[in-house]
């Protein structure tokens, strides 16, 4: 490590920590990485924090509070390159289910002292607030893809992270299509590749944890999900998981015929 090594900072908004944990999970590559960058801000790994600015910022989590909304602007201002990691940061995460419901009602019902809870009515991706240089998808992100993004940043090149469908990955690894051969409902045709098509390889349908691919035709897929046994409610539930508002934005007709079901705590 030299003084001139680029600095890396990791930040967290509303999230479960799983994506930044992926960085610590890079066991074999961690030492090499530590030799190539100076980890200046990574609270999950060390309480020693260096002040900004930083060369590369990784942000996990979505914006769910007024404080997050303020903080993400500060983070952006401190990072030369800002990369968001994971479904929360890139799509609002599972907590974006609030976008379909009345948050005020949650607050009143769940908390004994609702006035202590300062929260926004929506959970939004970082890109809804500031410019983002690259969005790495997944819940959680893929370790190999994270390393690729960091490596690409260090080399000054575009990361090799295709945005085509999970179907590409199934066919490449020789997985038999679970929809065509088994009649299993699967979000693979509309989901961003990156996981390596793990679920279909174990005979189950993709549940879309990497969010929408670069080219989505949901109205064409929904009749298939219905044919394979999902009712309207099941379809809505399948679409509204970790990337809920990316697949099925509130107020937009995706063809799911989804009269917004009331979400209750």
């Amino acid at each position, binding site marked *: 490590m030299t003084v001139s090594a680029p600095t890396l900072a990791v930040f967290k908004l509303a999230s479960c920590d799983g994506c930044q944990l992926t960085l610590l999970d890079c066991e074999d590559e961690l030492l090499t990485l530590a030799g190539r960058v100076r980890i200046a801000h990574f609270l999950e790994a060390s309480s020693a924090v260096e002040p900004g600015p930083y060369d590369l910022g990784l942000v996990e989590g979505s914006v769910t509070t007024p404080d997050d909304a303020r903080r993400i602007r500060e983070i952006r201002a401190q990072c030369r390159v800002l990369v968001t990691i994971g479904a929360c940061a890139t799509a609002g995460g599972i907590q974006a289910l609030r976008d379909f419901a009345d948050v005020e009602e949650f607050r009143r019902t769940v908390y004994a002292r609702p006035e202590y809870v300062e929260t926004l009515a929506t959970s939004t991706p970082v890109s809804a607030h500031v410019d983002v240089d690259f969005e790495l998808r997944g819940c959680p992100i893929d370790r190999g893809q994270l390393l690729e993004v960091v490596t690409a940043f260090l080399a000054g090149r575009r990361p090799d992270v295709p945005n085509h469908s999970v179907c590409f990955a199934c066919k490449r690894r020789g*997985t038999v299509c679970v929809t065509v051969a088994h009649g299993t409902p699967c979000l693979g*045709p509309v989901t961003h590749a990156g996981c390596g098509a793990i679920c279909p390889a174990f005979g189950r349908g993709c549940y879309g944890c990497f969010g929408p691919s670069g080219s989505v035709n949901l109205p*064409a897929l929904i009749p*298939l999900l219905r044919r394979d046994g999902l009712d309207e409610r099941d379809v809505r539930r399948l679409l509204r998981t970790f990337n809920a508002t990316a697949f099925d934005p509130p107020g937009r007709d995706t063809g799911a015929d989804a009269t917004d079901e009331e979400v209750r705590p």
Partner: protein
Amino acid sequence: MPDRRTTAVLDLSGLDALVEVLRGQGRTVVGPTVRDGAVVLAELDSARRLPFGWGTEVEAGRYRLVPRADGAAFAHTTGPQSWKAFLHPEREKLWSVDRGADGELSVTEERPPQPSYAFLGVRPCDLRAIAVQDRVLAGGRYPDSGYRERRVGAFLIAAECTEPGATCFCVSMGGGPGADAGFDLALTEVVDADGHRFRVRSGSDAGEEVLAAVPHHPDDPATGTAARSAVDAARERMGRAMPPVDLRALLAGSLEAERWDDVAARCLTCGNCTMVCPTCFCTTTEEVTDLTGDHAERWQRWDSCFDLDFSLLHGGPVRASGRSRYRQWLTHKLSTWYDQFGSSGCVGCGRCITWCPVGIDITEEAAALQAETSAGLPHDDREEPRR
């Protein structure tokens, strides 16, 4: 002097011996076998791994294995893979480069020893598909060296088609269920009162040599007649047909057809059709570096015209809409392929119909384009001069 070509009959133990002989030659024997509810292609350590007693029921967007009482090994239709998975693998390292301590770069071309394949059970449609890929990848000025090496070393054992599926249409693409060229050995499976056996014909010196090493019976008239009539009957049982028109001209004249909007509304742009197509050959190359920045590699990967990045130029993808991507695929496959490679890119295997999750049917789309075109010029914009 013509080469010697033998016709003989193998029984089940002869088929076992065939695989053993090929493996004994150091070949990697690949053939159909059952996995995860489908007949897939995989390395076989024995002929016993063939899908004996399994047939397939297919429709647009649907594939099911069904048991067969006759115990036939080659009574299934094309599965989700084709032989390109082996000849033209989805991922191949082309070269790597290292930067030494002195800053010097050293480039290493990847020329790993290629497996010597024996493909057992190649359908006649797939024999034609291999011939198409040969022209694309091994012909011309810049052959793909890895493909050519694997291809030159491959031993092809055809299995003539006696059970075409509901999505098959090879006859209307100028092919048929019989194998007439491009194989080392061709099998025709016969299961009747006289037993379970395979009529085998050699098609090359290498085939002749292998056949000589395998215990076999002389050809007999009953087996010959049964084999020929099974293949003839298959010709009449194709589940689908392309419209009997000049497809090359039809597609060339359909660039502004309304049908493209109709199919685009149904198309998931998921890329499955291109991945299962035995002739689709497109690849992309990616350079990757490691964390140290002193080692880089170039990889070739399967790509697809349904991938937005496929036509990505400065400013965005050229073919952003699903309409333009489906049109590109079909027009290339059925029309501009002739301009590039002197033949159609479609052999009528039916995989793109079966393995399209939403069941888009290439024969139906061609027929719809034909109906639209022959109905005249429905639109004023068709009168516009070409831009």
